[in-house]
């Protein structure tokens, strides 16, 4: 493997401004750019790592983005990466006089992406148990990152990833795209500005935690690198259900790989709840286990607000003077007219983004923190993970949101950092 070069491509280009070109040099139309398309040197170069259900959406979006260029695709399934490589080459080939383009690389190993100094940014949509390892590697390689939610598989990974992103100064967008939806933003602004009075409770309607799955062994399909697919997770025999990206099941519902719907949807709705409560970077102080009066867990915040896991899919904020209920394509308030309230110029206006991936791309240019910056993702996923822990252990969990520690429960604390199967580690 070639040595990883720390200096980014864009940094190099800035530094090379004084160099003189000697001799005849043919400048391609691609290099010069074309009407509506930036010159090659101004296009963001991107690699996609993990191109399953969710990754495909990002791939399609970036392929059609004229200010970006996909230089590599990476997936442990050979058929997937070969197919995507062909699609990239075909699309970019259409823009050339020759009709040919073979500039997209296809990798099984993400290290090869990280080793390329000519790749500016990565979009990471691998299964959850790989998120932290790949993103930390990307941060260390100086690449800006769009990483799908849920941020990580455990709490320690989340805050380690915060350290990496801050240390290496990369732009990190967590894929909790509901924050780039006007309905969710308006709902949270109503709450934050006191339009429903003093907030008392929040209800978050998402499914439950993941669990152990007992699946029969099946032959490994040709082209799937099952060893690497498992990566840091405990070894299990292959079964197609294990590595299925099925939104309602597959790896999402298996504890060694994911936190179930508590994290898969929780990274959306608990994230909105945190936003509405003004709790980014912070969190609850206790998670209460189900009891005879409550079939599901509750979170207690230092402010006195209680957040309930349960209810219809979405988020319901209840205050002393009203309520706001929000979901995709849905906003309902009590009283009715609150939904049409205009947030005043001197009131709190939350970060406005109407395009989650576009916000990330913009922040890459401006070198600013996007709407779901790493700390937002970390504090939101911490809420989800604490909830799962409470379900799995069947007891209350006391949490210090500043120190990021479980209080008074040494055995519960072991779940904060799950040992990884060798040789995999956050490097």
């Amino acid at each position: 493997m070639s040595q990883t070069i720390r200096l980014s491509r864009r940094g190099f280009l800035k530094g090379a401004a004084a160099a003189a070109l000697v001799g005849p040099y043919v400048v391609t139309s691609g290099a010069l750019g074309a009407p509506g398309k930036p010159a090659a040197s101004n296009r963001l170069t991107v690699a996609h790592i993990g191109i399953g259900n969710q990754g495909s959406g990002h791939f399609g979006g970036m392929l059609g983005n004229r200010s970006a260029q996909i230089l590599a695709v990476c997936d442990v399934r050979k058929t997937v990466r070969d197919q995507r490589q062909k699609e990239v080459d075909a699309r970019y080939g259409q823009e050339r006089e020759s009709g040919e383009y073979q500039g997209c690389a296809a990798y099984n190993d993400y290290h090869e992406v990280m080793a390329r100094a000519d790749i500016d940014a990565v979009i990471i949509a691998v299964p959850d148990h790989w998120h932290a390892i790949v993103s930390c590697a990307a941060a260390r390689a100086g690449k800006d990152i769009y990483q799908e939610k849920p941020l990580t598989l455990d709490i320690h990974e989340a805050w380690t990833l915060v350290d990496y992103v801050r240390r290496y100064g990369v732009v990190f967008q967590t894929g909790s795209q509901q924050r780039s939806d006007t309905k969710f933003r308006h709902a949270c602004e109503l709450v934050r500005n006191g339009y429903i009075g003093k907030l008392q409770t929040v209800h978050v309607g998402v499914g439950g935690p993941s669990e152990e799955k007992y699946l029969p062994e099946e032959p490994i399909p040709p082209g799937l690198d099952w060893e690497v697919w498992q990566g840091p997770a405990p070894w299990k025999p292959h079964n197609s259900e294990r590595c299925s990206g099925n939104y309602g099941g597959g790896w999402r519902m298996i504890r060694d790989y994911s936190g179930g719907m508590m994290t898969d949807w929780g990274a959306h709705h608990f994230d909105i709840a945190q936003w509405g409560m003004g709790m980014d970077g912070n969190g609850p102080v206790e998670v209460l286990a189900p009891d005879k009066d409550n079939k599901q867990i509750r979170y207690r915040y230092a402010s006195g607000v209680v957040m309930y896991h349960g209810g219809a899919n979405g988020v319901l904020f209840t205050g002393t003077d009203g309520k706001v209920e929000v979901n995709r394509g849905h906003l309902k308030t009590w009283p009715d007219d609150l939904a049409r309230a205009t947030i005043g110029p001197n009131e709190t206006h939350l970060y406005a983004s109407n395009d989650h991936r576009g916000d990330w791309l913009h922040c890459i240019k401006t070198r600013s923190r996007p709407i779901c910056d790493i700390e937002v993702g970390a504090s939101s996923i911490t809420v989800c993970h604490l909830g799962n822990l409470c379900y799995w252990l069947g007891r209350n969990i006391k949490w210090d949101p500043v120190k990021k520690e479980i209080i008074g429960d040494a055995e519960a604390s072991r779940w904060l950092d799950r040992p990884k199967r060798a040789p995999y580690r956050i490097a």
Partner: protein
Amino acid sequence: MKSLALFCMAAFLVILGAGRLPAADAPAAASPADLKAQFAKELDTLLPDMSSDDLGKRRNAQNKFSEMCLAAGRPGADAERTAICTVILPKLGAETGEEGRVWLLRQLQYVGRAEAVPAVAALLADKTPRIRECARRTLQAIPGDEAVQALRGSLAKADTDEWRVAMINALAQRGDAGSVAAIAKFLTGANEACALAAAAGLGKIGGPKAAAALAAAEAKASDKVRFVVHDA
């Protein structure tokens, strides 16, 4: 007195039968010997199915025992935790099926402490690679110096580079400052994977000794390792 003890044990059996000990109703009256006897009885009943080819039976047996283990790990229930770990230890050998052994090691990863270290450490040399790796992860999670000593000992005796990397990763993830010297000697060794693991590991451990070891190795390290050294 005997009837009271029998009553407590009966209550405890009812609770165990439910698969979980309620957090607020720990059977404080049960002696350590009673606890151990009851957990042993449960494990003897469940253990054969923990490795069953019938995945439904395996799931039920493993889940039921895991609920007991996790409940025994609650604050204030150290007598239960010790008892259940004690009954697990003799069952870690090869006479228990592989799936059962993996599952028992996972429970010790969750609730085992010093009492579990000798038996788990012995499995670092098991002939089954999967068992060795499960034992390694269990020791990584068990708090206390006993587990560290076991990991360090295994690193010293390791005869493959893969195992050395695995041990370095475990010690580094524990943040064990006492392992700096043991890890640092791999920084400039012949095997690149070990050197990279050592560099990354010392970065995780941090502190003046780790920093000094990294600085000392910089000039002698390969380019690839030097990059990680700088980073660390």
